[in-house]
């Protein structure tokens, strides 16, 4: 699902539960996660209850935006029209430094070079505006590893 053809707005359904994450991504290109005040679990995707302990006091915090690729796929076909020219795009399971698991895009000019274990970070705030959800890129840290 891409931006709505008629309104141009993001197709992500904004709710009271996820709006802090979506607003922070749109406005500042940062990743907000929830943390359960009872058990400390870092949570993605946004919920109204901690899936680990069912605590309902969840506090938003700004995540580091860094993580590593657990596994990934280079998707060549069936992409949303607005991303077709970028094929293949990299869809990855990412373990955030905070411990939560996400599935997200890793934007790179060299998809063939992506490997499991690669360190990734959020795209720049300017680049973030192209994407409806938090999106990553190979980390500059990788150069020194």
């Amino acid at each position: 699902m891409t931006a709505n053809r008629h309104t141009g707005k993001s197709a992500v359904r904004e709710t009271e539960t996820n709006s802090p994450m979506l607003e922070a991504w749109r406005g500042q290109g940062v990743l907000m996660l929830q943390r359960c005040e009872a058990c400390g679990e870092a949570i993605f995707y946004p919920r109204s209850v901690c899936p680990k302990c069912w605590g309902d006091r969840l506090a938003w915090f700004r995540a580091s935006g860094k993580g590593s690729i657990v596994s990934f796929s280079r998707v060549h076909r069936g992409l949303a029209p607005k991303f077709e020219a970028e094929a293949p795009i990299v869809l990855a399971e990412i373990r955030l430094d905070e411990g939560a698991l996400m599935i997200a895009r890793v934007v790179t000019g060299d998809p063939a070079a992506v490997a499991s274990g690669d360190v990734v970070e959020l795209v720049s705030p300017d680049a973030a505006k192209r994407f409806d959800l938090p999106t990553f890129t190979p980390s500059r840290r990788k150069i020194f590893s």
Partner: protein
Amino acid sequence: MSSKDVGIIGYGSSVYEKKATRTEMGYLAEAARVALASAGVKKGEIDGLVVSSTTLQPDNAVTLAEYFGLSIAWASMSTAGGAGAPVNVLDAVHAVASGRASQVLCLAGAAQDGAFFRDRITRFNSSIADYLAPHGSGGTNGLFGIVQRKHMEKYGTTRRQLGRIAVDQRANAQMNEAALLRGAMTIDDYLNAIMIADPLRLFDCVMPCSGAEAIVVGPLDRAPAGKGVRILSGRERHNHPVGEVSPLRGGWELFRDGLFNEAGFGPNDMQLVQAYDDYPIMVAIQLEDLGFCAKGEIGSFLDRNRLTFDGDLPLNTGGGQLSCGQTGGGGGMIGITEAVRQLRGEGGARQVKNATRGLVSGYGMVAYGHGLSASALVMERVS
């Protein structure tokens, strides 16, 4: 009535089509008519209806009864996607055994094509709609590409090994005139097919299509002579393992021992397996979790075993979804109807010799990264 006296007394499949030529109800009705005829049961004797469909909304099992002109004492609808139909059949057995219904019609299917599916999957459930589809990576192929790469990197599984699943199922499909994809497929065809979601290529990805499957559950003494199929055991498990997004295992590993212990038979006692095959990697994971080999050893298992209807472990003997097509929720029932067909000795050119017992495994409700639901049935021909 004991549940041992209840079982599958009829089965049926509609035509499968790449483009829908009728509504979902039309396909369900065709499968239902075939199933009732195979059971020797009249429409008026059906007083239970259960449906597994991800496309029937806003309709449901009760409005389906209205559409079909059925007055029913028990109605149910699955929420487990492609794992739903085995659960439906198990529930139907319990409904008859407990006296809530006397003959239950179990239905599953869809009227769809590839374009319909690509649109529908973006709204399949909330976590897909809100947190996956907006990435624009299209459908579920990328998710299973992630799973397959993980299995390959962790256990050394190769595409050539997994290819046996697609290639042997295609050989089975060549014996099934109802399969939509019957062209010969070699391992090189599989390995060199167009790239879809690396490491997945074309023949790793199931083709959405239109069609339906149907089962009639009732007292086994109502089945035509020698045609009853008993459910020896059945299980379901949802959202296992908790908190993982791309796991290499599923609920089958939790219920495997209970499933086989209750049946009184183990994996080696099955003459055929019908495993949910949206992707070969998921068939591989089911075979591991259900104990046909140890976790991570599916590669060498596939090196050693032929999976054709006349092979070492007959798997998806009609060609499975990978060769017949995926009829939405009907993808969870095609394995049941094919198992019943085989156990009744009605497999025709693809009949498995001495088919006495079979295992059907379900998988479905893809959400944030993987299918949440696992199910299975062990069934036996009533002699």
